[in-house]
């Protein structure tokens, strides 16, 4: 198979970028999309041109490192799939393929197709955890959890933090990402004590990072490689509202003594 690649090249954050055109020839249909780019990079290197920078690591769809907007779609044309799991058999011979980085002001481009997703980590750091230190813990079977609840929590918890939801959203919102973690912990008994403080802190951090607001386009769900449902956004909004209606509590503040 032969392809014409139209790839976004950019020196660094803040510098201008432009599309460059490359031709790749005799690509086997069993080659993965990233392996096709590896081949391109080897050819570029051999001819003295700088290879295209792109992120990837596990190459089995779980680390969330790979990105790429392919023909306008984050992670390309196949639903429920990361870029690293795309194969060239999913494209047609002779096709022109446009490859861009995630497009969102909260994810500045670092170089070519590599973006800075540290905003996601800061949202997580704002409250995406149960405060629990290492050491002896209660016997886990002393708190039974209905299998459906555990499964639903896992449906949310399987988010890989890739950022496709943000890249797909016309507003660049991070609601699906944030709600996945909020819902995972809000569904489980272990997440209850910090449930409302968590949702408030994470939503506030999300807004501070410059992500847009949700207008129910649902593009995030369509682009999510783990097919996480937007029902979790509704769940997060309900919890956020409940948290706002509760009497403000500063859990680190002075305790009223008896």
């Amino acid at each position, binding site marked *: 198979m032969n392809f014409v690649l139209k790839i976004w090249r950019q020196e660094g954050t803040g510098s201008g970028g432009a599309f460059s055109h490359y031709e790749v020839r005799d690509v*086997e249909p*069993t*080659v*993965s999309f*990233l*392996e096709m780019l590896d*081949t391109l*990079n*080897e050819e*570029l*290197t*051999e001819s*003295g*041109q*700088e*290879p295209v*920078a792109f992120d*990837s*690591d*596990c*190459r*089995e*769809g*779980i*680390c*969330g*490192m790979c990105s790429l907007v392919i023909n306008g779609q984050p992670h390309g044309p*196949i639903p*429920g799939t990361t870029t690293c*799991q795309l*194969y060239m058999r999913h494209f047609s011979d002779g096709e022109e393929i446009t490859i861009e980085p995630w497009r969102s002001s909260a994810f500045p481009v670092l170089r070519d197709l590599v973006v*800075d*997703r*540290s905003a996601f980590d800061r949202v*997580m*750091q*704002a*409250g*995406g*955890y*149960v*405060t*629990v*230190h*290492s050491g*002896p*813990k209660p*016997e*886990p079977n002393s708190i*039974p*959890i209905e*299998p459906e609840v555990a*499964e639903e929590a*896992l449906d949310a*918890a*399987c988010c890989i*933090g890739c950022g496709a939801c943000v890249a797909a959203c016309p507003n660049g919102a991070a609601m699906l990402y944030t709600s996945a973690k909020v819902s*995972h*912990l809000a569904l489980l008994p*272990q997440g209850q004590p910090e449930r409302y403080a968590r949702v408030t802190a994470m939503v506030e951090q999300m807004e501070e990072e410059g992500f847009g607001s949700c207008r129910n386009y649902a593009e995030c769900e369509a682009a999510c490689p783990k097919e996480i449902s937007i029902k979790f956004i509704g769940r997060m909004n309900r919890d956020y509202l409940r948290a706002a209606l509760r009497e403000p509590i500063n859990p680190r503040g002075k305790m009223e003594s008896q």
Partner: protein
Amino acid sequence: MDLDARIPSAPIEFMWDTHKEHLRLVGPRNRPKYRILVVGSGLAGASAAASMAAMGYRVDCFCFQDSPRRAHSIAAQGGINAAKDYRNDGDSIYRLFYDTQKGGDYRSREANVWRLAELSTAIIDQAVAQGVPFAREYGGLLANRSFGGVLVERTFYCRGETGQQLLLGACSALAEQIHAGSVTMHTRSEMLDVVVIDGRARGIVVRDLLTGKLSSHAADAVVLATGGYSNVYYLSTNAKGCNVTATWRAHKRGAGFANPCFNQIHPTCIPVAGEHQSKLTLMSESLRNDGRIWVPRQASESRSVDEIPESDRYYYLEERYPRFGNLVPRDVASRNAKEVCDQGLGVGSSGLGVYLDFRDAISEYGHDAIGARYENLFEMYERITGESPWNAPMRIYPAPHYTMGGLWVDYDLMTTVPGLFAIGEANFSDHGANRLGASSMMQCLADGYFIVPLTIGDYLSRHPSGDVTTDHAAFSDSETEVRDRTERLLSIQGTQTVESLHRELGRLMWQDCGIARNADGLSRALDEIPKLRERFWNELRIVGSGETLNQSLEHAGRLADFLEFAELMCRDALVRDESCGCHFREEHQTSEGETLRNDRDFSHVSVWEHRGMDHDPKLHREALTFEALPLAQRNYKT
């Protein structure tokens, strides 16, 4: 080289408790005065960094990815063992210890293995408290399944994403500590040297992968949690970025490297499709619970799969190992797959594959029950190969997966360099010559949550805090060395890409130091590797500069280390003139083709001391003793 493992003198079942009772402590008010560097943010690194920070130590954590959550622990699929005995099937700490020792073919240290088994249950408790959504039974209690090579059901799991969920649990604890200001996280940062001053590890030199800037970090202790070296084979189940650099550079600064030839080849991976392939994908070993492995009995089989009658299907594992059948340990399964393919019975276009068939399981348990267990794995297989396991058997083949070898550590997980600790896959201690399925995450989390946070205190308490800063000349010397090396890589300007040279090394290692080894092949590899290394330093071409994100340069630095390390690996495999676990020397096998150990001469850990690239490394031995579980020939047949 001091190889005193400092094993506490107490009966094995009381050893860890006794040791904890006698460890020196650092008081809560003094802990913030000590600074600890943790390199790596996988299960071991994240859990250690979070645990030590929560105790009050000042922690800096480094990873080369853009976020700690990307570490390759995330890809562990199947599950994590714990001796909870929830299934009432006779499990116990002793039984998990026994299975691990036996699985490791008696080449691990009993004291460490017992402690691992002992701590296994606390890991589950810890993970559940963090909100890890393990699979549950209808009554709401934790579910279990069995896993390769054992006769009890002790494996806890979250569908096929157990590693992801456990890592997100550990990273959530890390996130909390980052938020609290107790951990400073350095992403896209690669450790390129350990700084040793007056015989103690006092810091590291790190390259910022975005700007190429080098920085020095001084500390009171350094913890390496940098994973394994399976990518020495180029193709492995590891992530593209996994590398030996941190442990190798620590080795060059004095840390003994133990059993480098012990690497596990995982039996259930998707076969190689072609030259372009950049990595191999593991299919969880749990598939072997219900899938039946076979090849056609005839080498020239031309019928399609469903036309091959039962009598012409060779279920070779079930026939050869009736008791364990398809659940034999990984090395046995891998070697048998290679053997039938070498006999010309392999399937698929390359002939390097065997069938893993769910036909019988689907008809026995129904579509839904099998779907509930394996749906995401079936989807993954179909996504990669374009074929559905519902309609035709999967094709699988072994691939390098996990390395049991690593930096030598004592009972406190400290290397031969005082103040330098190694945890998780980066150390050698618990899995001997082969690792049981569902034990890697167990070891990472035991090391990170429960062991190193305590043992590091004992070390720190013996030294004043913060007495070395990056002003010390050792840091600038090390930075200069690292900078020179990077410049040298950029200045070669040859013709070969780093990928092509890495592929060459991989082929060589797979051929001569892979599933089966022999003295001729290993000697040949020992001749070839230095030549390839020389070619690397003469023919490599990297385009671009060292002052921006340059992924070829990163890869080249890692390959340069693999090219040095590969030689040590082959040397170790040559010197270990016996077969044990996954180290299969063709010269040493039973009449049935099983590994034949030589306990008289090789009941030891081989620990290598680096003496410069111009000198051969020196071999030291830590003798292994077998008191809790006497030596026995491994036998999965009866």
